């Protein structure tokens, strides 16, 4: 743990398994990554690759219905060994989370003002009047017009985008140092998506807050993140700075993902897609999880799991043939 001081959050060998009718599903399979203060880390992957479960494992939600192993160090303390009661002072005040579905993540029976003040009540010493003032300030900060008059409104009186803003206001009420954002823009339409992302970015900058942004949208990653971690079948296949990973992907899966993004395509050209489907989580291959779909795969890929190894230029990649891929990209 040499870099313990510079990293805010260190995830080590995080493994989340679900037991269902005698089958064991490995949703997250030994992932490790760091989040530094103030940085935006994108966690990308297709549906079912374990992105959301990773986030929920970090904050201790996944252990309610699965088994979480590994270590999650937050300021040197392992969050996974803490009880729910101990976690109460980390959750909401130091680490916050926003969800994919803004329509359901607010309590329909409480006014927006009460829900913001609730966080302040739990984590700060502000009195009633100060809480109200802070709630107005927060709504103002997330760009809700005439904030003071909207405190008394109920969630159903807000649109989807506005609700996500309210959710952000609640999550940021106690100035967290890390925000876990679980596909915060997926349920919103494109123009609102962009607004919400810009808002998150500017708030992260102003408050010096780190964000882990889960998404399946590479465009969002390119636009917002500093670093990116690509997940496939519960494993990290590639991490690195966004510029490096998107420009010079070292892993065939990342390469496949990037090739699938339609860009400057003439009309009526067939779109590229990675052949095959991801493996079932109860039958992960012994070797590289991507091997069955990989055009590069050889015997070694089927037999041994490639480790996530650091390559020269700030990229870590889990592939036996990183050198070859590089040549292919450069060619």
């Amino acid at each position, binding site marked *: 743990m040499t870099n313990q001081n510079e990293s805010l959050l260190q995830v080590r060998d995080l493994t989340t398994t679900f037991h269902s009718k005698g089958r064991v599903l490995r949703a997250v399979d030994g992932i490790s990554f760091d989040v530094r203060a103030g940085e935006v880390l994108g966690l990308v992957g297709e549906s079912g690759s374990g992105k959301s479960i990773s986030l929920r494992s970090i*904050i201790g*939600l996944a252990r309610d219905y699965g088994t979480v192993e590994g270590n999650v160090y937050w300021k040197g303390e392992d969050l996974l060994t803490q009880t*729910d009661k101990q*976690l*109460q*002072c*980390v*959750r*909401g*005040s130091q*680490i*916050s*989370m926003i*969800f*994919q*579905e803004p329509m*359901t*993540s*607010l*309590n*329909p*029976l*409480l006014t927006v003002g009460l829900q913001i003040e*609730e*966080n302040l009540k*739990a*984590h700060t010493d502000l009195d009633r009047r100060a809480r109200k003032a802070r709630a107005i300030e927060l709504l103002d900060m997330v760009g809700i017009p005439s904030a003071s008059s909207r405190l008394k409104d109920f969630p*159903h009186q807000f649109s989807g985008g506005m609700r996500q803003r309210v*959710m952000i206001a*609640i*999550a940021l009420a106690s100035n967290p140092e890390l925000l*876990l954002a679980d596909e915060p823009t997926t349920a919103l339409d494109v123009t609102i998506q962009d607004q919400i992302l810009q808002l998150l970015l500017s708030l992260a900058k102003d408050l010096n807050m780190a964000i882990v942004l889960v998404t399946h949208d590479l465009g969002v990653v390119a636009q917002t993140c500093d670093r990116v971690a690509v997940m496939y079948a519960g494993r990290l296949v590639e991490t690195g700075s966004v510029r490096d990973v998107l420009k010079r992907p070292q892993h065939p899966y990342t390469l496949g993902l990037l090739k699938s993004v339609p860009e400057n395509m003439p009309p009526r050209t067939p779109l590229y897609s990675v052949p095959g489907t991801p493996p079932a989580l109860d039958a992960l291959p012994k070797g590289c999880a991507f091997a069955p779909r990989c055009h590069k795969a050889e015997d070694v890929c089927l037999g041994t799991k490639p480790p996530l190894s650091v390559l020269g230029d700030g990229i870590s990649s889990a592939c036996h043939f990183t050198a070859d891929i590089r040549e292919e990209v450069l060619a």
Partner: protein
Amino acid sequence: MTQLDTLQATTPQKKKLHPRVKALLRPGFLLGFFILSSSILLAVFPWAFAPYDPNAFDFNAIQKSPSWAHPFGTDNLGRDTLSRVIWAYQVDMQIAFFATFFAMVIGVIVGSLVAYHGGIADVLFGRLVDVTITFPFLVLVIAVVAVLGPGLTNMYVAVTLVQWVYYARLTRAEIMTQMTSDYASAGKVMGYSSTRIIFRHLLPNATTPLITYWMTDMALAILLGSSLGYLGLGAQPPQAEWGVLIAEGRNFITTAWWMSLMPGIAIVVTGLGFSLVGDSLADVLRPRGAS
């Protein structure tokens, strides 16, 4: 005058009712509400409505059939049946409340806690529910009353002991549903205490079926109370209670039918009132989909 102004001026200012208020202005609810409110009135001020003392004997008027002087007739001791039915409201409305309220409070608390915390408590609770609902409700209540001895208080205890399980089961199911929603997870990741999440976030969202069930249960409690009264396990004579009144008239059913019929009608009407109100509230309180 601009176009908008003319438009506003010509549109008749019809006051729009809130859709929920509108839903309450249906004959079913109005009838139920009328029955319930008059029942409560009769229960609170029986002396204002009852023409005679319910326990006063009149040996010149024994088993008189209904007349202007005694609209519901008199019983075998010359007591006025109408007055006894009216005074019985006090007892039976009390039964409706006390035989359900404590069961509901206990059931809601236990149900929420086991639903939220799960684990071994939830498993044990599940077995307890299974065991309880295996027995017919009335048989179990009668068994408990038999142990505790007859009387109203013991009847409340017996009903609460059995009935709370049903409320707990309902609450547990509702809380489990609510727990899958994102705002429950959100409350958790915001670092709120479990008590707060349960009682401030989950439970208020789960009250609708509870209130409806409570209303129906009050109607059933009146039936149960009168059944036990009839069997001599609930209210004790000479206290006026509908079940007791029916039991008193039982031997005279061929000669003085009014002694049993009139309290029977009171039971039916009051039960109907609770059911009508319960059904209408179920429609009105349904939170989602009522946009």
